[in-house]
């Protein structure tokens, strides 16, 4: 049977167990949209800006633990996806982005809405393709999904010229994918693992450092088992929050620039660090020369380039986190349980002491709302069960500090690239993946305006998300740096000119609410969470509240500003 390129594309997407895609039509993809309208089992969510489509696909992938898909047109449609792709690349999120392209005969002629998107996205995709031959279409789509989700996941872009979508061929089911040059290593070297067993038994001050890789490989259970079996305290990077239960007594909180005192002190003093699925980003390590000076580091990662990129590693292990930890745990089970638990009492007491001397705190008075208080109240009202997305800046750090994540895939944030405008479209993607869950975007008054148009998507596509705006009328994180390091020269960070968010919500057909006093916080949140449909809850908060603790850029983790 002869099928058009567009038909083959839709068929191949559906064969990947994808039920929802996010997109925006345009001239070069009309054939695909024509076909989509005939496929009611593949839901298309019409965003209002292509960047939103990619962030939504990113969050969909994370909330569901599968692959997210975005579809956009050529030229500006394609370039608008770049921020979303770069963010997914930094966070290793499996998405496939389909872009329209001008007909093959016009490529290279500076045609209307032509752009070399394959060239543009080469450095920020795991891989990308231009499909010039319809015979290769099905195979390429299948490969794109395979590459996106295998090994260290990441975004893959497939550029689709209009004539290839319109052409017809006899469709043949593509064969299973084998790529001669791409074979990720899942199984760890067992000799290395027996070294780790010895290191654990000898360690007096061990620490587990979990990252996004633990969540991506679905290894939360394994990392939790390891911690409990060997009595090792756990810290997790921003991307790893939820990989280990935040309510566990072994939980130390997040390390790094805005990490907890005890997590950073533990990093600075541990004698063994078992790092799984982390890449030792500068926001985590602080001054690299002074990072974990006493620790022998065991690093588990599926991507060899992550190992020894930033820090020296005593025991490198290339492998999938889940498989590696599973084998490690079974090896530890064969050992004497007492030896595995070692002598950790002194270490645990030291950590308790750090916790007691410098807990994370803020002072809520009767007059002005503290942003941290809003998040703590949100945590209590949602019983910690909501999926939280964030924008970037202070809102993101407070969300990470005060919402205690017990489960993976519940904290969705643009960790590596730090994209303002991520949270709202991401909330839509998460809601589409998990309709039964409460999804809350924790936003600032600055970043919410970067993709505010997606409110229309939320209302139209019936994706009722809740948006908490912590309104301090500043670009708060930049203001904080200006206060601390630039003599309070608040250059261009004052955002007193802002829309009326209640009216804005109403203009889009959503509901708007506002709280100005601490006494109104709980009531507003509880009302907003109960209200049907999409709701903006605006909280007028302390203008010059800063995120603490803080390790100034370029300082060692143990040199924190506590305030």
């Amino acid at each position: 049977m002869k099928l058009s390129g567009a038909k083959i594309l839709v068929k191949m997407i559906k064969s990947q167990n994808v039920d929802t895609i996010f997109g925006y039509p345009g001239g070069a993809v009309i054939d695909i949209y024509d076909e989509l309208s005939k496929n009611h089992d593949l839901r298309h969510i019409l965003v209002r800006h292509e960047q939103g489509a990619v962030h939504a696909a990113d969050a969909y992938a994370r909330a569901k633990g599968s692959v997210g898909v975005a579809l956009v047109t050529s030229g500006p449609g394609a370039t608008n996806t770049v921020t979303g792709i770069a963010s997914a690349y930094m966070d290793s999120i499996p998405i496939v982005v389909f872009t329209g392209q001008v007909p093959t005969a016009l490529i290279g002629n500076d045609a209307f809405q032509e752009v070399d998107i394959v060239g543009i996205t080469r450095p920020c995709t795991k891989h990308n393709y231009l499909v010039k031959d319809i015979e290769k279409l099905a195979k390429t789509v299948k490969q794109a999904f395979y590459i996106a989700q295998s090994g260290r996941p990441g975004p893959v872009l497939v550029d689709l010229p209009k004539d290839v979508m319109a052409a017809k061929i006899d469709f043949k089911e593509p064969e299973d994918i084998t790529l001669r040059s791409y074979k990720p290593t899942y199984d760890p070297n067992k000799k290395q693992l027996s070294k780790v067993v010895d290191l654990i038994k000898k360690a007096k001050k061990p620490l587990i450092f979990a990252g996004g890789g633990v969540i991506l490989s679905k290894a939360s259970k394994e990392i939790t088992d390891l911690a409990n079996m060997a009595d090792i305290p756990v810290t997790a990077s921003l991307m790893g929050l939820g990989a280990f239960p935040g309510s566990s007594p072994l939980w130390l909180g997040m390390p790094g620039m805005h990490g907890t005192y005890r997590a950073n002190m533990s990093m600075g003093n541990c004698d063994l660090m078992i790092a799984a699925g982390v890449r030792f980003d500068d926001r985590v390590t602080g001054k690299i020369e002074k990072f974990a000076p006493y620790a022998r580091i065991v690093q588990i990662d599926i991507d060899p380039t992550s190992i020894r990129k930033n820090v020296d590693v005593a025991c490198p292990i290339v492998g999938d986190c889940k498989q590696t930890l599973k084998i490690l745990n079974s090896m530890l089970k064969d050992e004497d349980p007492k030896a595995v638990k070692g002598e950790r009492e002194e270490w645990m007491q030291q950590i308790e002491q750090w916790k007691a001397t410098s807990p994370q705190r803020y002072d809520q008075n009767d007059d002005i709302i503290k942003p941290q208080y809003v998040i703590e109240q949100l945590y209590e009202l949602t019983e910690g069960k909501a999926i939280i997305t964030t924008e970037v800046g202070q809102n993101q750090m407070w969300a990470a500090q005060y919402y205690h994540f017990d489960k993976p895939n519940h904290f969705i944030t643009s960790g590596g690239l730090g994209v303002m405008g991520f949270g709202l479209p991401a909330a839509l993607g998460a809601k589409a993946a998990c309709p039964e869950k409460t999804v809350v975007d924790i936003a600032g008054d600055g970043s919410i305006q970067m993709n505010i148009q997606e409110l229309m998507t939320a209302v139209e596509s019936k994706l009722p998300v809740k948006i908490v705006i912590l309104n301090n009328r500043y670009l708060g994180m930049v203001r904080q740096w200006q206060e601390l390091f630039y003599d309070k020269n608040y250059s261009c960070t004052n955002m007193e000119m802002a829309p009326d968010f209640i009216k804005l919500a109403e203009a889009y057909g959503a509901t708007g609410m506002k709280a100005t006093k601490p006494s109104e916080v709980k009531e507003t949140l509880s009302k907003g969470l109960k209200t049907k449909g999409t709701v903006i809850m605006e909280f007028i908060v302390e203008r010059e509240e800063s995120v603490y603790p803080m390790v100034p850029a370029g300082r060692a983790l143990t040199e924190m500003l506590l305030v």
Partner: protein
Amino acid sequence: MNTDKHLLSIVVDDEPGVLSRIAGLFSGRGYNIESLSVAPTARPDLSRITMVTRGDDHIIEQIKKQLHKLINVLTVSDLTDKKYVMRELALIKVHAKPEQRAEILRIVDIFRCRVVDVGHEHYTIEVSGDEGKLKALMNLLKPMGIIEIARTGSIALARENSK
């Protein structure tokens, strides 16, 4: 800091854009390419890239890993510490006034290279060899006045183990 030269031999899929992926990796991450040569291998669907790069051990390790991570890269071998044969080809156009011609031809003879183009005022010399030989030849020709040089960059293959 030790920034030794490394000679990498990289086998890649012969597909459009592969060279750009490799060049982009180097520019994006701030690595250095001293010379680069690309040509088909014995298999029509594969190309070999021979590259001379510089860096300390840490950077070279990252370069090799990052190259290997590219989907179109099949193998990356660092020939530096192995036994290998390396050659480079150069074309050197040099001023050849009548009184200098004999001297130039003597040099050509000593270096076992060839004159491939002759004019009233110039010779074009074809030379192949390792970097040291090319450098020595150019030094000797310099006083005559070198007009233009075209070089291929190094190409290399590992030696087979002799039994």
